């Protein structure tokens, strides 16, 4: 057991997966000697060799397409896309091939690949480096979409993603790559996919979030506690397929729900959760479901990005309003 950052936990999980399974291959831009632009793959090429940790040409479509070919042939490729804004050339491969080849061949061919990419804003990065378009990915049948929010969950969920027999997009919360620290035991144990984590129990309101935004969500829960409001905080962790039972169970208990995400509101994943609660949790609601999200505009560049992202204050206000609703 040792304390480490979230990005170090990802590195640890990659090393563990490569050690345990010779079919695991890591590929991407600068993942070799440079260890990835965020250092998630640091040391892996030295340890496992350039054939299993390969620097690809600068072509994102290629990375995702190679992963499909390798995975169908029985390897376990883990591709890295440097920033989520560069993921879009991979959408064709994810939608048209990775997510459906099992179904289209009736199980004859399968695609056990992982595509990792940093997610979200808040590091004052250049243009196209601050995306959070997870809802687009969660709309794809046959795919899994996972996003951890702590070093421990990053380690366990990444191991689960690599071992999973189906394609997984693994989103990594850029803003807390180094800010999130925690104890991680390198025990090779995977966490379950499709299961949400209740990070904090409460009676009055359910706060649902994922990725880096849980930092603000947990801080909001602290602030609410000082006002006598106990918030239950749910880390959704897997967005596709997501743990409907935990969401509905928590809302049944609290009667109030605030969904927090960094992505823009319209068509965001919060809308899916709100619809689920409207369909199957309406009778337990004591207040309308609220969303605290990024605004429906293009993510601003560095100088304004913090105004786009939900703040502790906005979350607290929404939760307080839900609790005062009558």
């Amino acid at each position, binding site marked *: 057991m040792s304390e480490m950052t979230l990005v170090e936990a990802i590195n640890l999980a990659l090393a563990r997966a490569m050690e345990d399974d010779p079919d695991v*291959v890591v590929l991407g831009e600068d993942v070799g000697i440079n260890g990835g632009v965020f250092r998630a793959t640091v040391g892996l090429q030295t340890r496992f060799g350039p*054939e*299993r940790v390969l620097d*690809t*040409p600068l*072509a994102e*479509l*290629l990375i*995702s*397409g*190679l*992963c*499909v*070919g*390798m*995975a*169908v*042939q*029985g*390897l376990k*490729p883990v591709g890295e896309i440097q920033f989520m804004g560069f993921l879009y050339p991979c959408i*064709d*491969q994810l939608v*048209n*091939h990775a997510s459906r*080849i*099992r*179904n*289209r*061949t*009736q*199980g*004859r*061919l*399968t695609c056990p690949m992982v595509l990792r990419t940093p997610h979200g804003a808040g590091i004052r990065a250049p243009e196209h480096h601050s995306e959070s378009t997870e809802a687009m990915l969660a709309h794809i*049948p*046959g795919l*899994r979409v996972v996003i951890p929010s702590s070093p421990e969950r990053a380690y366990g969920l990444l191991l689960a993603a690599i071992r*999973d*027999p*189906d394609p997984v997009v693994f989103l990594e919360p850029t803003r807390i790559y180094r800010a999130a620290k925690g104890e991680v035991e390198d025990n090779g144990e995977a966490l379950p996919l*499709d299961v949400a984590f209740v990070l904090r129990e409460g009676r009055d309101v359910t706060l649902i979030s994922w990725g880096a935004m849980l930092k603000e969500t947990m801080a909001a829960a602290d602030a609410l506690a000082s006002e006598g409001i106990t918030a239950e905080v749910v880390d959704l962790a897997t967005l596709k*397929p*997501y743990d*409907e039972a935990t969401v509905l169970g928590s809302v049944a208990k609290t009667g109030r729900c605030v969904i927090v995400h960094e992505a823009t509101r319209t068509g965001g994943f919060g809308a899916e959760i709100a619809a689920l609660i409207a369909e199957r949790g309406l009778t337990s609601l004591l207040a309308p479901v609220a969303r605290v999200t990024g605004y429906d505009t293009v993510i601003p560049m560095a100088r304004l990005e913090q105004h786009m992202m939900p703040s502790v204050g906005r979350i607290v206000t929404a939760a307080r309003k839900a609790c005062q609703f009558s």
Partner: protein
Amino acid sequence: MQNRSGSEDVASKKMADGGLPVIARFEVRHRNYLAPDGSINRPLPAFASDADLLTALYRAMVLLRIFDRKAVALQRTGRLGTYAVSLGQEAVSVGIASAMRGEDVLLPSYRDNGALIWRGVKLEEILLFWGGDERGNDFSGPVEDFPFCVPVGSQAPHAAGVAYAFKLRKEPRVAVCMFGDGATSKGDVYEAMNFAGVHKLPVVFVATNNQWAISVPLRLQTGCETLAQKAIAAGFIGEQVDGSDVVAVRAAAEAAIAAARDGQAPYFIEAVTYRLGDHTTSDDASRYRPADEVQARWKEEPIARLRNYLVDQKMWSKAEEEQLAAECHEGVEAAVERYLATEPRRPETMFDHLYAELPEVYAAQRRELAGEGDV
């Protein structure tokens, strides 16, 4: 073929315009043996002395044409979905597949029915696919081959990934990726070729240049004299073959696959042929293509070309021709019967094989579809 000049060579070369030295020169070869009338243009490759092999290629092309005609008839009578015909370009898919080993992996595009048939995919499986049934992709034959790729060229990176897996595991196998002339305009194909060149992967890329990408002619697809030269930019050999000469296609495929298997380099084959039919049964090529152009191309088509040669060489007789036609019709009709008799799938099976294990949240939807209660 490429020829990178050494530095000494450069110094001795005549200076190009402006006194700048030429540092590289490239060539593209064209391969052809049989003229359109079946006569011989140059000495045939060794395999051509094997009458059994040549007649096998001939039989496969004839079967494909008869199968094609039947598939179109099925579509016209509402018993098959949209179908992509191979008419005129039978030599490419048959010739390429004939040079592969069983353990190699084919990554076909949607017009490569002939390659699938040669590799052992059943006719009724192909009909099932075009009839809108996923079970058609569950090949009983070459179980590691990819299904038809419908988004153009997007299987090229898969081929590079497959070949990388072969190389990593030190398996002497080759990935063969087939696509059309239109696909060579896509970044997917170039990205895959580029990567294959970097790692000298055991992969062969085959562009069936049938002159037309639906209604767009080759001259609007590329400014290059050949498609084969696109391989040069990726660092390996690109060869152009007469794609209506099955002997040339087979010979090029043999050379390419051998080179790839030996780990020398990837290989690119541009097979120049002509799509005598519509793009698919949903297309009407007379909207964009003059009839006299098509008529002229009928003189070059691959089946009559090989038949003329075989008859001339006394390798084929009229009796054999009649027997073959009867056998093909019989085989196709039997396959159609099996296709039409295939038990329909229950609607809820659309959830089968979505994931290795269907997550409970979707299992509820499956139950709803199966009439086993509401979601």
